[in-house]
């Protein structure tokens, strides 16, 4: 239930930011949607077992969290970072061009 609410809030605000438009909102919205998606995957593994899946002291299936969604989310977070960084570069590039165009236009004022 808590995870569902968290996902709902993150997805809603993420969508809101992206739809409102603008580069900053787009990137922040993208990050929030990424969080929502990762929480969904964690939720799929179930949250009734909350012990870290470290099997050094013996395996306790009843209490250990599902490791597979964790592995998925771990790489997903890093990939989200990679994509965010790429988005940033595109945004910066576009903004730079528009800024220069505006600057050139302003030189005649």
């Amino acid at each position, binding site marked *: *239930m808590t995870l569902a609410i968290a996902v709902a809030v993150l997805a809603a605000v993420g969508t809101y930011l992206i739809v409102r438009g603008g580069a900053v909102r787009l990137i922040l919205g993208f990050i929030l949607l990424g969080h929502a998606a990762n929480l969904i995957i964690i939720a799929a593994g*179930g949250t009734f077992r909350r012990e870290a899946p470290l099997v050094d002291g013996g395996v306790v299936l009843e209490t250990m969290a599902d490791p597979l969604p964790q592995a998925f989310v771990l790489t997903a977070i890093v990939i989200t970072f990679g994509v965010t960084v790429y988005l*940033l570069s595109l945004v*910066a590039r576009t903004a730079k061009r528009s800024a220069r165009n505006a600057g050139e236009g302003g030189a005649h004022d």
Partner: protein
Amino acid sequence: MLVASLALIGLTTAVVPLVVRYLGRYTGYPLAVIFLVAAGLLLTQAPEVMRGETVVQSWQWVAAFDVQFTLRLNGLSLLFAMLVLGVGALVLSYAPQYLDPHYEVRRLYTVLTLFAAAMLGIVLAGDLVLLLVFWEITSVSSFLLVAGAGTAGARPAIRALVVTGFGGLALFGAVVLLAVKTQTTDIATVFALAPERLSVTDLSIVAALIILAAFTKSAQLPFHFWLPGAMVAVTPVSAYLHAATLVKAGIYLLLLMSPLFLDFPAWNITLLVFGLATALFGAFEALRQRDLKALLAYSTVSQLGTMVALVGVGTSAALAAAALLVVAHALFKATLFMLVGIVDREAGSRDLDELSGLWRVMPITAGLTGLAAMSMAGVPPLVGFVAKEEAFYSFLDVPQSSWAQGQQWAGIAAAVIAVLAASLTFAYSARIFAGAFFGPLKQRNLYEPSWLFLAPAVVPAVAGLVLGIAPGLLNSIIDRTTVDVGFTMVGSDLSLWHGVSIALGLSAIAISLGLLLHFRRRWVIRWLGEEPPVASGPLIFDRIWFALVRTGSWVGRSAHSASVGVHLFGVGVLIVALTILGFAIIPGATDGLAPVIPDSMQLVDVAILALLVPTVAFLARARTTITALVLAGFVGLILSVWLLLLGAPDVALTLLLVEFLTVVVAAPVLARLPRHRDVGRPTMAAVAAVVVGVSSGLAVWAFTGRRGPSELSAYFLTEAEELTGGTNVVNTILVDFRGLDTLGEITVLFAAALGLLAATAVGVRARKDAVIEVLGRGEQTVLRVGARIVIPLLLIATVVLFWRGHDEPGGGFIAGLTAGSAVAVAMIAGIRIALPSSGAMLAAGLGTALVSALIGPLTGGAVLAPVKVDVPIVGSLTSSLIFDLGVLLIVVGLVRVALERLDGMHIDAGNDTDDGNDTDDGNDLEWDGQDRSSAVDVTEARS
């Protein structure tokens, strides 16, 4: 010897570019010698073949599909192989004299040799898959050679490729069907099993597909048009590919597959009807042409039609006649092409209206042309005459075949059409000779070409004469061929003189009619019209082609919008539709939900939520970029804590580090961005947000937390230590169990870093205004000192986290992010660390991961399988540690690229001096098309 011969030509292909560097256009000579050696290698097996044996060599190739690399030599393949290598040797020794000294010979010789290898492969292939592969290579090499003619060759090359590629697909279909039905791809076995395994329907489909493949390759109606177009290629290519060999591949396929259709009348009727129609059509068109090469091209279309029709007749005599015609045609057509090339070079034209009286200055060329043209025209005592006689016999014998069932009219009709085609053939053959060599001499200062130039044409011309006088030389190979195509040995008795017979009478009629047509050619042309009566093939092809291209761009147009909504709309509709569909068709979908497992929600979760929701809400309403960025970082922090509480320390650590790095990387970029006016309609955005939020929340509530531990989860938890030696199950999943997945993911990171490098290639410069420079002296000192303490700690943490990752929280991703954080701190504080370039780091990372993936196979295991080594003192090490090192390097590389490149991008318009070489106009993405207008109010959010 089969494989030696094929390998010799194949390997030569690889060496040709090197040889061309030294020998230039004279590379043709050594190549010709190699072709002859390859032919010799095959001939060492000829005695066995002639004794009736089939030489087979086979190796395991694709074990999973039980496909063998089987080469097979029987009479049929020997006959075609000799043509491929023999004509190849002639053409290659002709090319050096023909080619312009400045011609791009490297490509020509390389592709020609490649083609020869593929063609040899087709005729030697004993496996359907092998046949298909070589078949496709010939199509591609034909395309490359035609396209080599420059812009004039572009459209014809595309037409040739599309038409023959279409045929290749048809052949693929036939091969798949045969392989599925007979459970093998070995040609001999397929033939043995086909009668019992294939239904009449299967056989009809196979027949249709094979006919399509053969008709496209051998330029039969209605696919003939690509062949005349292909004449833009240089003459050696026309002589070799588009007269003697490539176009015969279709005939070879029909002959090869004939045994499947011994009792299948539709096969015979289709081939006979289309073959004769093509023979007649091609002959008429040839008579209309003025350009000698175009004339020869249509003549080839016509002759191929006769061969197809003969295969269609389906009697042993007809198939023998087809094989004989293949030989005769290769000899006279190769000669004619080479001689036309010589005339073209010497007289500077191949237009029959411009050439005249050349025999006075080039008597030997004239004589050779006459010899070859007579063979083509079917005049005794040349081999073309013998082949034509055999063809007439075969057509007359149609009623005796198993499928025609005594229908006398069929034989008469076939023979009449054949005679008409033969008389037209005589007419255009006569025209070539008379048109170019008789009449008044217009160009007096011409001379006979050097004997080196002529010699390659002399050989096939004289061979046509010898085989015409003594056709018995071919008896044994033709006999063997008829056996190979499904008949018992009949004992051919080829001879020049059969006594007075119907065939002789038909020959006489054809020649007399041909003479009449030649002298009254203008009547024929007037009757035919100067232009083809129907819309020409290339025109129809181009119409279909461009219609397809337009349809494609129409379909793709919807994806070209810059509006986010357009892209999301389709996805949204699809999701809704799938949901409805799912409820409709999945049994039990409406039965209600299973109860939520107790303990799924705990008090601490509520506390987290109480922090998270207001933070996110503030983020939605944040006024400045920096506020929003800080709040976003705070969201990440809250989620990290939550993940830690949920039992995911690895994920929590990763998220924490990524949040830090995202803020560091994004802050300088976003802070410099001009603030955007609110562009989207807030109501629309709010509605979309509520829909997405509510539905995803409901989905998570409904679909998760209602099921016990999965089997997979139990498997990983119980087996991880035993199988991988690691106790941190998440890490073992990343580097051991799902290593291939991780390899894919780091490749994505690698690609993202490359994209970043490419996107920021312009206008990069080192950061000059490091954060520290805007701080006061005291603050600077604090930051510098702090950084000097933090960086070593982070680097130690990197080593520890990496080393213990397999057993405790840590691993390549986390260690990489930690090291990246150290680099980020150094950058903020303006401290320089000497490191190899980030590009080198990325490459080293991917390389390390790939090399570690190969350790498994090298030690006899699977790709990425962990290999354990016991090292004294350190303990046991596994190869997955090396893989994880690759992961680490890639992550550090990505972080560094992000830090270095994004930091260096300056957005200010005024002092923008570093991008004088920024020339990529129109390449930028437009964000909703709104950024450009919003750039007017350049306000730095930082101020």
